[in-house]
């Protein structure tokens, strides 16, 4: 077998050195009742590369890839063009096939890249410090709520109706077991982001650990969080800001700048592909004074025995392998390689490139929004927006999305799918427009939507 270097002669010689008569002698500690002789049901015998490729390519062909269709899906995962060098560099074996940098003398590549990543993330989100990544945006969001509980010693979190419903679901799952109280809501197609913020401000009380608000929100709306931050701080609560589209930060003010204490984000849209939902990369940033309550790995600068600058994993007394049941989180493996992809893509863009990319996204989106809102009985409900907006259709959006997909247009995410059972939202269609969308794509969407509605 091509992945196994040992040959039968090697195996015999090794057994002889060990003093074992057969390989079975090495498994004597397995209780007899549990010794499995096979075969394993349904799993075929070994196969050559070509056969494996054929089988998996067959499954891949049964999916409609984003690049094969006019594509407008977002709602937490975004399609941007990723420069070819990003994927080439993360496939360097020294990055791809190394592990968590426990031996810093031979892991400076990973450690320096993580230190650079932390700095980029902190600056992008407008915070003092960032960690070396979380699993994804939704788990980062939950960890932020847990961190706010530890800092404020309060157990009641208020979640904005604009927070991605899957993130809300993750938080509800966890809160059920940790005992945190969550006040949740759903977005309103007839409301504004400002009205939602006013509702949140009114709900803050002396028991509130944090308010969690997504910006841009699930409908694509962008809001100023400054007033909300002040209201949180006045009551001793923290503002947790969530971002699922970090490209937006090339154009709009950062969450940290608007007063957020913890920013949790999904970094997928910079450097990481859609991957049907994973792997992605969670971003996590906060104020310097809260760093010891932060979850996850941290790379830090130090010097070696000869005085040269170097990097190590640090503040590990927060972590499970040292603190065990007293750790700030149970996270161990995070999303290192996706963090590297994020960092490389952001380095290629640079500040000027990111700003231009964000402007392009916004301009394309304005074009698409105007075109689609001109369709009969179609109304755009969210404003202002960055690269994603919501339409109210004259009928439920879920069958419309399916009808458009059946004719080869991936025309948006139905709020009916995101909020099953919420009849007030069932006509909502969330449309994301990035730099990858052409004028022809916009025309194709307008045609498909118009036809599906007629």
């Amino acid at each position, binding site marked *: 077998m091509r992945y196994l270097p040992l040959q039968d002669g090697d195996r015999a010689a090794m057994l002889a050195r060990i003093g074992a008569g057969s*390989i079975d002698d090495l498994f004597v500690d397995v209780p007899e009742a549990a010794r499995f002789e096979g075969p394993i049901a349904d799993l075929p015998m070994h196969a050559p590369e070509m056969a494996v490729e054929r089988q998996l390519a067959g499954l891949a062909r049964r999916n409609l890839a984003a690049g094969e269709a006019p594509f407008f899906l977002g709602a937490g995962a975004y399609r941007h063009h990723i420069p070819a060098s990003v994927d080439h560099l993360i496939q360097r074996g020294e990055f791809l096939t190394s592990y968590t940098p426990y031996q810093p003398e031979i892991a400076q590549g990973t450690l320096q*890249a993580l230190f650079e990543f932390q700095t980029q993330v902190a600056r992008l989100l407008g915070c003092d410090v960032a960690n070396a990544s979380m699993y994804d945006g939704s788990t980062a969001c939950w960890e932020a709520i847990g961190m706010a509980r530890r800092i404020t010693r309060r157990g009641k979190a208020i979640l904005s109706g604009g927070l991605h419903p899957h993130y809300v679901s993750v938080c509800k799952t966890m809160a059920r077991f940790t005992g945190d109280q969550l006040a949740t809501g759903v977005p309103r197609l007839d409301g504004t982001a400002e009205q939602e913020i006013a509702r949140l401000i009114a709900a803050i009380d002396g028991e509130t650990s944090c308010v969690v608000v997504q910006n841009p929100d699930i409908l694509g709306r962008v809001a100023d969080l400054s007033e909300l931050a002040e209201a949180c701080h006045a009551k001793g609560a923290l503002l947790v800001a969530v971002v699922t589209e970090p490209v937006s930060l090339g154009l709009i003010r950062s969450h940290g700048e608007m007063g957020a204490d913890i920013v949790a984000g999904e970094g997928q849209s910079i450097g990481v592909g859609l991957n049907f939902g994973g792997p992605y990369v969670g971003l996590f940033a906060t104020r310097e004074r809260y760093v010891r309550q932060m979850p996850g790995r*941290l790379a830090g600068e130090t010097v070696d025995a000869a005085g040269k600058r170097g990097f190590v994993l640090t503040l590990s007394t927060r972590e499970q392998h040292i603190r065990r049941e007293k750790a700030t989180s149970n996270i161990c493996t995070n999303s290192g390689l996706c963090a590297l992809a994020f960092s490389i893509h952001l380095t290629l863009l640079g500040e000027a490139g990111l700003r231009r990319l964000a402007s392009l996204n916004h301009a394309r989106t304005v074009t698409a929004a105007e075109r689609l809102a001109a369709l009969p009985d179609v109304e755009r409900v969210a404003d202002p927006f960055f690269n994603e907006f919501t339409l109210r259709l004259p009928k439920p959006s879920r069958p419309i999305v399916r009808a458009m997909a059946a004719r080869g247009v991936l025309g948006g995410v139905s709020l009916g799918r995101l909020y099953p059972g919420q009849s007030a939202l069932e006509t909502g269609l969330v449309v994301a427009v990035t730099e990858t969308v052409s004028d022809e794509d916009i025309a194709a969407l307008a045609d498909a939507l118009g036809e599906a509605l007629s």
Partner: protein
Amino acid sequence: MSINASGWKPNIGDGQGDHERPSFTGNRALMLEEPLIFEIGDTERTGVDLADAPAANAVDRLGALLRSAPIGLPGLTEPETVRHYTRLSRQNYAIDLGLFPLGSCTMKHNPRLNEKMARLPGFADLHPLTPIEQCQGALALIHLVGEWLKALTNMPAIAMSPKAGAHGELCGLLAIRAAHEARERAGGAARRTVLVPESAHGTNPATAAFCGYAVESIPATGDGRVDLAALKAKLGPDIAAVMITNPNTCGLFERDMIAIADAVHAAGAYLYCDGANFNAIVGRVRPGDLGIDAMHINLHKTFSTPHGGGGPGAGPVVFSQALAPFAPLPFVEKQGDRFVLVEEETAQAEHHGDAFGRMVAFHGQMGMFVRAAAYMLSHGADGLRQVAEDAVLAANYVLRSLEDVLEAPFAASGPCMHEALFSDEGLADGFSTLDIAKALIDEGFHPMTMYFPLVVHGAMLIEPTETESRATLDQFIGALRSVAERGKAGDPTLQQAPIHAPRRRLDETLAARKPVLVWREQPDAAVAAE
């Protein structure tokens, strides 16, 4: 705007301890020093050609939300970027370079076919909210991997969404807690404690505590296993679950596992198995036959998906019949020839009455599922069994080849599984496991896991995996023998190691005492000196 107008100034130290004259650049031939992007890039430079910025009126509607202050993100052109990261990569050790025997981490070869398959556009360029009819192939793949994992473990149910091993542990414990809560609603008493062996991974007690449980530890026997009598003495109406790693972190199979499971179940608790070490038994032992209730499977260990410098991993969890109803959303279900994604909480009642909600935003680590599928198809049922056998053979070969020079605390109790455990006993005064590990770096190997498990003094946990040739194993054994002999003889040069790595020993105390976690512009040293 330039972030670093004064240019990159290498800090090459005073050369103390170096035997050769420092070079002008600080470089040593192929070993190239590389500054930070903040020291070489600037905010106007870019490696991406984009269309011209749109007319200003397009952004007018954002008004006061527009970002005006500088962000401070340096850019590099493509050649500079490629060189920066290529140079950084060369300061890393990796499986592609040599033996990486980090115990309990299963650093095996990462097949490149996996990478190729994961990048097929039908998988890599597929949005998680693609309408169900347009992602049937992806759902079929998730289902297929799930079915194979269930077959390999002989367990009836699986949750595919957990993102890593520790996340899988969380999933398993949440299901256990949900099952107990269901019993409590039927009048059962609350259970508040989880038992964890002393030798467990730190994630085990951290996870149990996260789920709201008190954690108590179970002592080990003299031969490195769970003390069954001590465990039985601790079992009682307050115990919710017992978390066992099998094979355990001493590299040994828990011989009493079936008796442990029986005792745990008799006490009304559930048995969680940490499946980090599944590589030792895949195809030869199905954990379901041992009586476990839940186990996570690290696809980045047993199923060869790359570790990536610390993730992403994937940690699907298999469940027994008793816990199956409590697995999380979403999950893939086969209905006739069609696959559906059960993701709506309102659908729970129809399919899965006691499911708890989502653990992640979407459906788990699809990219890792594709890689694991490619690996499983490549090895097949026959090859996976050979994987376990070769992994165990290699570890025993290391154990028996070195037990005369390094103290192997459990070697007398019989064979080990996939990893060989040694202690620091017998090293000269003032010499430690750390010295042995750092000296292995100079020999061109990644060190073993150090100081874990905690039950052995100065533990050295060596997991060679099945993807090493006998010649590589022999070279490693020779190198470790040489280093161990130096340690026993008290060779002071050992305490200087490593001397050939990109860096000498790093000051971790300084890093923790004065944390520098982000780069900040330094005052210009030259100006300050004037």
